[in-house]
């Protein structure tokens, strides 16, 4: 009798444990009988370009549903306003896929409005995601807020090829003609431009409409003058703004000299992308700030067989200091996140659904797309994208195909294997190497945000005015309208009187909060 009872109890316990079978994460696929998880997002139009009626109809999404065993459907709206409107109508989905910056008030507002629940309460449904969060110290603080994990994020694997996607390039053939090397200091850079103008007759040696980003905010020449960049940075957790520092005086003087001596495009304020690309192609310019992707595009357009672009990384200090800054994506770039709303009647399933993306199989498919259509395994077991993706018959680029048929900039663990294909061209890779020779990781700010609403409003009001003034003065210093000797102190004083110190204070508070996590 006792034995029978024991057996009965055991069977009963076993039966009650069955629905939890999926909870370990290794329990995929689930039984697929649930009400569809509703996911709200801004339409991914590239899915339509690729021939599907929407992102929810792509083989990628269908594979995701199939393999995880959890039903889901996608509701697409035309733009960010559409998300806000759908929510304001009381039509709350289970999951919202959105850039945090696209939601008024950011993560703080999402939490206040009960649109981003604490996922840590469903921890047992996302073991794979938790494991990844633990695999590197910068991941967990990024997604944790008010006591728990708040969203599924796009995370870059630490072993990934370091991606730099914007910096300076120069025409190799011009270097060859001048018998010069790629410059590494501000003096060498000046000499190169000077030689280009006077020996080669290049009209505007340095030209490009990304000058603001590369020359100023990504600190191309700043190291020489004691600041990493003209934009924001941190030293030992202290927030700084380069254009408010004394070192900025030297930086703008340097660029002013380039402008005065005819080495910087006199129309730098107005020259657009098409004009500067054309100039680079026809030789009226030799040094150009651009993106890695455009290196490929520009080179493809050149009809000159000698045309080759090489990268110039941020310049070192003449005293030997290694370049301090450049463009650099953190391992936690602010891309599209997945938030589970408090209105979801199936939060466990929603969590489990997204957790699948971080499983071993899920990671590959979320990076490359579904097997067969989008990639094959080669002899060594490595995924290789198919021709359909790399040389799409409709002419869509590999990147755009990834947007349509994989997770791309959504929540996913981005692996090295994929990046090797995305940044495949040798010229681009070589440039990225050159752009990597600096210590930007030391000075970059982490992806923090200002969480207090009142402070965020104050910050926005201050910053809009301050940035307007900084940008106006920036060009005035370069052209010489403002004199770096006479007018610089007044410039700093003006920033002070407009509230720059208060802004730095607010940013510091937010930064401290982030580090405290």
């Amino acid at each position, binding site marked *: 009798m006792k034995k029978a009872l024991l057996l009965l109890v055991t069977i009963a316990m076993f039966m009650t444990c069955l629905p939890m079978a999926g909870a370990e994460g290794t329990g995929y696929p689930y039984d697929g009988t649930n009400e569809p998880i509703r996911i709200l997002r801004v339409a991914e139009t590239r899915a339509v370009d690729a021939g599907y009626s929407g992102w929810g109809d792509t083989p990628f999404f269908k594979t995701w549903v199939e393999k995880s065993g959890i039903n889901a459907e996608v509701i697409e709206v035309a733009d960010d306003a559409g998300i806000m409107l759908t*929510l304001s109508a009381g039509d709350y989905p289970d999951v919202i896929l959105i850039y945090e910056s696209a939601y008024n008030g950011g993560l703080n507002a999402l939490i*206040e409005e009960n649109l981003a629940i604490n996922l840590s309460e469903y921890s047992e449904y996302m073991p794979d995601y938790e494991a990844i969060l633990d695999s590197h110290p910068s991941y967990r603080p990024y997604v944790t807020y008010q006591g728990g994990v708040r969203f599924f994020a796009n995370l870059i694997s630490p072993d990934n090829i370091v991606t730099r996607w914007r910096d300076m390039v120069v025409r190799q053939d011009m270097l060859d003609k001048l018998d010069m090397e790629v410059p590494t200091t501000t003096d060498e850079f000046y000499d190169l431009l000077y030689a280009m103008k006077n020996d080669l007759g290049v009209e505007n040696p340095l030209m490009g409409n990304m000058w603001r980003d590369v020359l100023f905010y990504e600190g191309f020449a700043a190291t020489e003058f004691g600041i990493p960049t003209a934009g924001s940075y941190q030293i030992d957790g202290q927030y700084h703004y380069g254009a408010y520092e004394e070192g900025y005086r030297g930086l703008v003087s340097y660029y002013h000299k380039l402008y005065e001596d005819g080495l910087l495009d*006199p129309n730098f304020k*107005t020259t657009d992308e098409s004009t500067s690309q054309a100039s680079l192609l026809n030789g009226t310019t030799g040094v150009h700030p651009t993106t890695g992707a455009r290196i490929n595009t520009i080179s493809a357009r050149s009809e000159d067989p000698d045309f080759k672009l090489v990268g110039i990384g941020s310049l070192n200090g003449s005293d030997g200091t290694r370049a301090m800054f450049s463009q650099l994506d953190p391992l936690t770039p602010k891309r599209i996140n997945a938030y589970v709303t408090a209105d979801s009647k199936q939060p466990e399933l929603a969590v489990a659904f997204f957790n699948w993306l971080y499983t071993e199989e899920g990671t590959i498919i979320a990076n490359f797309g579904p097997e067969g259509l989008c990639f094959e395994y080669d002899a060594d077991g490595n995924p290789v994208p198919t021709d359909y993706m790399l040389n799409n018959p409709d002419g869509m680029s590999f990147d755009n195909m990834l947007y349509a048929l994989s997770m791309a900039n959504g929540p996913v663990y981005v692996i090295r294997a994929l990046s090797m294909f995305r940044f495949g061209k040798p010229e681009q890779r070589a440039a990225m190497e050159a752009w990597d020779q600096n210590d930007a990781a030391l000075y970059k700010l982490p992806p923090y945000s200002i969480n207090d609403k009142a402070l965020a409003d104050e910050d926005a009001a201050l910053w809009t005015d301050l940035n307007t003034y900084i940008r*106006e003065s920036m*060009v005035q210093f370069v052209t010489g309208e403002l004199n770096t000797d006479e007018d610089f102190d007044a410039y700093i004083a003006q920033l002070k009187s407009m509230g720059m110190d208060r802004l730095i204070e607010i940013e510091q508070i937010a930064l401290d909060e982030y580090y405290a996590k």
Partner: protein
Amino acid sequence: MAQSFSKRFKKDMRLNWSAYLLVLPVLLYYAIFCYKPMYGIIISFKDFSLRKGIVGSEWVGLVYYKDFFSSYYFLRLLKNTVVISAASIAVGFPIPIIFALLLNEVRSRAYKRTVQTVSYMPHFISIVVICALIRLFTANHSLLTTFFSYFGYDDRYDMLNYKEYFVPIYVLSNVWQNTGWNCIIYLSALAGIDMELYEAARIDGANRWKQTLHVTLPGIANTVILLFVLRLGSIMSVGFEKIILLYNEGVYETADVISSYTYRRGLVKGDYAYSAAIGLFNSVINVIFVLTANRASNRLAGVGLF
């Protein structure tokens, strides 16, 4: 009126019931689509929360307005908006009228039609392409710059570098793009003038110029006045798209307007209530202008909106 309200009301109903019935769909339209959502106008006084909705959100009063008015650049933005708008009206309003009048004098019907059809085409080209073309025209060593170099302009520089040229470029390119389209209403007004009036004037010995003065202009006067009053009602509405596409920080001094500033502000931190406040501010100014213009035109010309 010696009659009481109810007497007049009854008389009105008796005489005009068919008119009220006829216009009922229009009244319904405005009631349902304009007045029913009108409560949303208070959003700029609230700390908007999605869950609470507009009505349920907390009042914050004039916080956004204070924010906007206390901006370091408020006066400059206001000045630029008004200057660009006033210049657009001063230049852009008469030109289509003159254009229509001149076109009306063209003898060849085929030529007239061709000019009409071609001149309104730029109106349809998207602003992105138009601005790319403007940049092309005003770039260094380009058509306009080379032309002006004969007048002392240094043609190595793009014209959009200079804050003095921004407003003329903005206004004149608007004329270029939109005159053909804007003159259509005047052409139709010209077509509505009774031919017999011209005959009568000719018989009285008036030449073409006198005819224009005494027949044509009075004939389109009502249209012109109406459109002018309405135009003044959009004085604060300088759209941000074209400004953003043409400006750069070197010309903020004359080019940065309320809408472009608000756009930049929205990039830092999106806020519907804030942009709604700016919108309301603009609307109030617009209404003041339109009502004033209406009253003036009623007094001076005897005709206006109401």
